[in-house]
């Protein structure tokens, strides 16, 4: 469904991605694990069209998307939940959700999607008139995911959804991600919390300093001594 081939990208003078190649299969959860600064977020930003790439191709459903504007990529169904949730702090929960559906025209269906998000995350319904900035970390993460789902993604890019959350909340979020996959959405999950990600995922890539150093089935990565030592501690 998504294919990166030899993607290079520079951030200011740093060579952030050095020939990244990876594949995300339809209706699977693909994990991207690695240390801080390995290039995980840069990869997602490149897929979303925010971070320009200097060479290589990014194909979604067979079509190259690396030259498209971010909005066009969203229109095709690739939606990202960015690192740190990036909720609009001075917009209400409802307004945040409305913006997730920015490119959708049919008002009735958007309203339906909003009802669905409230079903998936009842806490958001309670807080719908509250400013996004007043929510707790876990609630903000839920809002960020709900907001992305408002865009009806075919491929959901999740950047560190567990970051800064209590273990119980992490479990809850991971459960939600599984549910989203079961609803037929393909997921590319970036995580520092390798354990949680690989337990959930089908397939995984390990990246270090902008390169893929290892790829395998998620289960196999969990048992891989190198992964165990470096990321599972």
């Amino acid at each position, binding site marked *: 469904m998504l294919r990166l081939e030899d993607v290079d990208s520079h951030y200011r003078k740093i060579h952030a991605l050095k020939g990244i190649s990876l594949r995300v299969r339809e209706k699977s959860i693909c994990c991207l694990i690695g240390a801080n600064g390995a290039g995980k977020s840069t990869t997602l930003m490149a897929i979303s069209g925010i971070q320009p790439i200097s060479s290589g191709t990014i194909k979604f459903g067979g079509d190259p998307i690396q030259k498209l504007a971010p*909005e066009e990529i969203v229109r095709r169904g690739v939606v990202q939940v960015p690192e740190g949730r*990036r909720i609009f*702090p001075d*917009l209400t929960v409802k307004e945040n959700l409305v*913006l997730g559906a*920015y490119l959708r025209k049919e008002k009735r269906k958007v309203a339906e999607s909003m009802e669905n998000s409230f079903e998936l995350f009842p806490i958001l319904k309670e807080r719908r008139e509250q400013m996004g900035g007043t929510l707790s970390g876990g609630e903000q993460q839920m809002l960020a995911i709900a907001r992305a789902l408002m865009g009806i993604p075919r491929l959901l890019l999740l950047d560190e959804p567990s970051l800064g959350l209590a273990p119980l909340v992490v479990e809850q979020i991971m459960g939600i991600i599984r549910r989203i996959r079961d609803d037929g959405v393909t997921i590319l999950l970036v995580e520092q919390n390798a354990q949680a990600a690989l337990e959930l995922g089908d397939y995984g890539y390990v990246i270090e300093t902008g390169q893929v150093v290892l790829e395998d089935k998620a289960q196999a990565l969990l048992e891989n001594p190198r992964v165990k030592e470096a990321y599972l501690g």
Partner: protein
Amino acid sequence: MESLLDQSSLFLQQLVNGITLGGVYALIAVGYTMVYGVIQLINFAHGEIYMLGAFLAYTMVTVLGIPFFAAFILTILICACFGIILDFVAYRPLRNAPRLAALITAIGMSIFLQNLALMIWGSQIKSYPRDMFPAIFLKPALSIGEVSMTWMQVFMLSITVLFMVILHLIIHKTKIGTAMRAVSQDKTTSALMGIGVNRVISFTFAIGSAMGGMAGVLVGLYYNAIFPTMGYIAGIKAFAAAVLGGIGSVPGAMLGGGVLGIAEVMGAGYISSEYRDGISYAVMIAVILFKPSGLIGRQIGEKV
């Protein structure tokens, strides 16, 4: 005449004048503050859009013979386009450049547009022909004792209030307005939502410039004087109003405009009319010294 007025009616009369003038400042200030909100740029060429608005309506009425109200509406639309073009030509190429570069460009655009107007219309002060609108405009609409308000003032104030309400509704009740607020908070995330950030910025320039052009026509009418440098002083005053209210805050710009207009007219009436312009500067300096975030602005870490 003035000696006949007792103190309270002098005060009330000045208040009426101040509110009318303040409304116009608010119209201009909104343009500064909205653009600052979305791209953190003080668009110093905004005053020139206001000036161009005054001249455009003038040319339409005197040269092309278009009726005033039609010319007024056309001017608003053309100024909206000017705003979009200004952003496209001058600021968009500098979107990722250091902010100082865009600021200097803004000053450059201001000087360029001023001189362009000088070339097209000359340096002589122009005025709208008196017969272009019904004579009733100059007659008092209501007078209570010695205090009166002309139809012109009623017209200006209603237009101001009407468009402030429309602006508020756009910002808070429409999707593009929500997108504007989103872009002002976080551009990258806005783009990730599928919002065309540049389109939203263009829209912001269009709205701000439309209101600026409208203000130009209104002031041109009110003072009956149109000249190439009129945008400079009005621009600085509206900027002061935006700073007073809290730069980036639309209600702040409205409030700041009102307060500044009243302060200026009161100062001119009670102290000396020669200090008219000085009062705006004094207000701006006082705000920067004592409350840099403005009356209802939020704290901002960075300064231009």
